[in-house]
């Protein structure tokens, strides 16, 4: 018998050794605690941040399980297309971009997972999925926030006022252009990162671990290559939308 639908198979042919997976998640967790300690843990999130994160997760659930799942049926099933996942990432990135604090990405994915369990999955296979999604997709978003110093997609940057003889409009225009370029560059980076966990961790470890599935490394490599174009386009769009929403909300 298995525990909560988790079979716990660790020696399926081709499966990534569990030690490596465990090491990744221990390192990821260590990073979470380090950042949490350094920046004051959950306390640094204002109530408004928490509401943003919650609304993002709720919209993500509404999209992935109710709107996107029916749209996806109209399209051929192919690794190139992931309507549900794209919508979720798009929505969550927009709301994370409103918060822009390290940890916002992981918290968003955590809330999304708990909510999708309440509404749809009924806590099957948990806590594996929550740990996995939070510490892969969520962590990647947070790494980008940390690298950009809290200015993901260039949101919150001020126009360069050092040169006084340039008119205000030109400065704002320059800033807009810089933000657009940043949105594209960071979108590409995030898109490529987002393509990795599902094939590597899910097909390579969690699926055999949870269900005892056989690993086909050709599928893994093909899926990574097939996920990249869609994910990159969606994350770039998310960057542009995040810029617009941030402006509409008045940041």
């Amino acid at each position: 018998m298995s525990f909560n639908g988790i079979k716990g198979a660790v020696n399926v042919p081709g499966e990534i050794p569990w030690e490596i997976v465990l090491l990744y998640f221990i390192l990821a967790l260590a990073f979470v605690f380090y950042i949490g300690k350094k920046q004051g843990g959950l306390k640094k999130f204002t109530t408004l941040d928490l509401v943003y994160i919650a609304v993002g997760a709720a919209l993500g659930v509404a999209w992935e399980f109710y709107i996107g799942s029916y749209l996806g049926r109209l399209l051929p099933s192919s690794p190139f297309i992931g309507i549900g996942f794209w919508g979720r990432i798009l929505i969550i990135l927009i709301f994370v971009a409103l918060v822009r604090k390290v940890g916002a990405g992981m918290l968003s994915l955590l809330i999304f997972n708990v909510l999708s369990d309440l509404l749809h999955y009924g806590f099957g296979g948990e806590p594996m999925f929550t740990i996995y999604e939070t510490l892969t997709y969520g962590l990647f978003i947070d790494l980008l926030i940390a690298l950009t110093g809290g200015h993901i997609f260039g949101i919150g940057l001020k126009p360069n006022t050092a040169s006084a003889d340039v008119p205000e409009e030109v400065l704002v225009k320059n800033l807009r252009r810089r933000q657009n370029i940043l949105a594209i560059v960071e979108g590409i980076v995030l898109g490529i990162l987002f393509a990795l966990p599902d094939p590597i961790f899910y097909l390579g470890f969690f699926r055999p671990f949870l269900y005892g599935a056989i690993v086909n490394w050709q599928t893994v490599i093909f899926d990574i290559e097939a996920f990249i174009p869609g994910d990159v386009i969606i994350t770039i769009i998310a960057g542009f939308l995040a810029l617009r929403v941030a402006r509409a909300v008045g940041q």
Partner: protein
Amino acid sequence: MVSWILFFYGSVIPVIIVLALIGIKGFVEITRYESGTTFFYKLNPITKVVLGIVVMAVASVTTWWIGAILTAAMLLVYLTLNDGFRKFMYAFYLFLSTFLGGTWSIAPYTPYSVLQLAGFKQFNVIWVWPSYFTAFGYEPYLTVQQLIYGAQVAFRITAVVVTSLLLVLTTTASDIFRMFTKLKVPIAITFAITVAFTTVPKVFDLIDTSVKMQFLRGFGYGKTAILRPFYLLVAAILAIPPTIIYLARNARNLAISVDTRGFRAYNSRTSLVELTYSKYDYIMWGIIVMLIVLAILANIFGFGRTIPYTGL
């Protein structure tokens, strides 16, 4: 031609069921709490969560018709809810759509190797797809066994979806808050979960308003009735950006009103109502134990799952 009808049967019918029969208002109804006094409203939310987990586990380790019975039983529970018949019909449409879509999104793609692993020995071909259908990832033939396999997986999904929504329909946001507090989840996370929980029906409500406004302004006016669900779909997608912006702007109001009540001034909150286990919970726990015994018996007598452990 028949191939295309079959193809659209599996992909379009679920969408039409959702758009025409449930509608966006239906999603509001089926994700929002309404007060009631019957059995399910009196249960501790933790009991309901455990029921969901057990139903999921039982449906996934037993044969397809046990999943079907579980789904049917859970659907019938909707009749006991406040305004039960309407909720039952919405849940039934959702089940129908999920079931058809689920079966159809799995069956034609399942290769014979998987079916063999699933323990099927003979294959009855009922339809030969045109060769270009393999571009969608279809197998060359459709067999009865593929359909059984698809139904098996789909019933596993429907049983859980129907049970999960039962939790959502009969539990107040406050009770969800208390449940996570009792499970010692940090208050910031509990708060975010509760807000998200109450936002889901609001999302559909806002989309509905926006869709109606678009129709009032003449979107899809004078087109035939057959096309109407698709106009609804397009309108719903167009409604998403305004919904996002509206929710993002209103987030500030909610944050201010929560902060003025002294939220997070302390690390914990005191609650007037304590979550308790009543006799109804003990009855439910009895049913849960029976379900587990049933699953074990089913496996002993050879009615275990017909999905091989190669995953979905």
